[in-house]
């Protein structure tokens, strides 16, 4: 079966089993390996992509049901691969370690910050409930997110 997918603004064709999870189509067929299939249960957040702007675990979305929507993967963020303000803050604060969870973190936080540009610490933590990080212990990621724009924030 052929599925036409609109990914990062381009039409891409996928020939294969429509039950294939979207994450495998991204990684194996389209070689967009930024999304990581870490748990395949929707609990880790590492495969998060935006489907019509909504953060979605791409491990739980069959390719056959992904047509007709605008899919954005980590590779589609930023102009020509330049860093977004969020990515820049994460780089500047040196919060990355192994890095496997960060594409998913960025995809979760990007629409969150667009909707809520001035979040509290607690709100950032709530937004990250579905993004697990095994290396960093989270707090410095949250410091970095709160540092964007260097605004004073209440905890």
């Amino acid at each position, binding site marked *: 079966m052929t599925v036409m997918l609109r990914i990062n603004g381009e039409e891409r064709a996928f020939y294969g*089993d*429509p*039950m294939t*999870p979207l994450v495998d189509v991204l990684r194996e067929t389209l070689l967009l390996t930024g999304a990581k299939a870490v748990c*395949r*249960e*929707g*609990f880790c*957040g590492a495969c*998060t992509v935006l489907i019509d702007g*909504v*953060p*979605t*675990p791409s*491990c*739980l*979305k*069959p390719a*056959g*049901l992904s047509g007709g929507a605008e899919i954005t993967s980590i590779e589609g963020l930023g102009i020509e691969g330049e860093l977004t303000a969020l990515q820049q803050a994460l780089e500047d604060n040196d919060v990355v370690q192994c890095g496997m969870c960060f594409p998913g973190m960025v995809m*979760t936080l990007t629409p969150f910050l667009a909707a809520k540009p001035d979040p509290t610490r607690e709100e950032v933590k*709530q*937004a990250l*409930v*579905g993004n*697990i990080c095994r290396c960093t212990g989270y707090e410095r990621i949250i410091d970095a997110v709160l540092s964007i724009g260097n605004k004073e924030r209440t905890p």
Partner: protein
Amino acid sequence: MHPPAKRSLHIARSVTEALEARARLGDNAEFFAGGTWIMRADRREEFEDRHYISIGGIEALAGILISKDDVVIGASTSHAELAAALTEVAGFRALQVAAEKSANPAIRNLATVGGNICTGGFAAADLVPALLCLSASLEFSGADGLERVPLETFLKTRSAVLPGRILTRMIVPRRPRRSAHARLPLKKAGDYPVAIVSASFALGENGAVEDAVIAVGSVEHSARRWTALETAIRGLRPTSADVVALAKETAGEFQGRDGVEAPGWYRVKVLPELARRAFEDLAERKV
């Protein structure tokens, strides 16, 4: 070991198409809504070949209609959509909290109300006890037309109701009640609750409980009402301590299920505390 299962996908565009596909494909076919359960079949070591009939795109299953008498929720409504729609609806806090706190934000964008109810194997569903305490009814569509079944009845007769039918809508009556949803994940958030108490109370002028519907989820394999506590509390103007005491007296009617995440005794043991939390939340709220 088992060979990997063959799984095919059929996309239904209407309820009729979905029911026809279901009839045609036979017993190893099932409806595919949000996919958050089905896409994890491998993890549950389910190796049978399956036909999946996608119902997520059927317009008749979408949408939430809030009128003065009831709230009608389309089966393919996601948890996130439901949580957003209910923020201002008086008396629906139990359902709003259940939809807003279940699993994690991304799952809430995918998982549907209908899937939460129809997935018999998912004991930790948040919406089921919440809908139960609000006396929801379910509307099914089948070859023989529409059928409306109280959720409470459905939970006891699930296997008799489901074959040949598709869940289309939930109808939740609007009544002057207060409700609350107390869930207990083992972490702060992000995992499934090991026990849930959802409650709705009708309070009289003097603050006495005229009627209570209290539902317990995740403790047993299926959610059900805590009738002994409902009876015990009726007519009282209870304090938190009273609720805890009555809950302790009556929790024995539950047989906790043993699971990898928590033993059965624990699920029962925390019920009085969850009853207290639900009660305090409900008592603090004026509407």
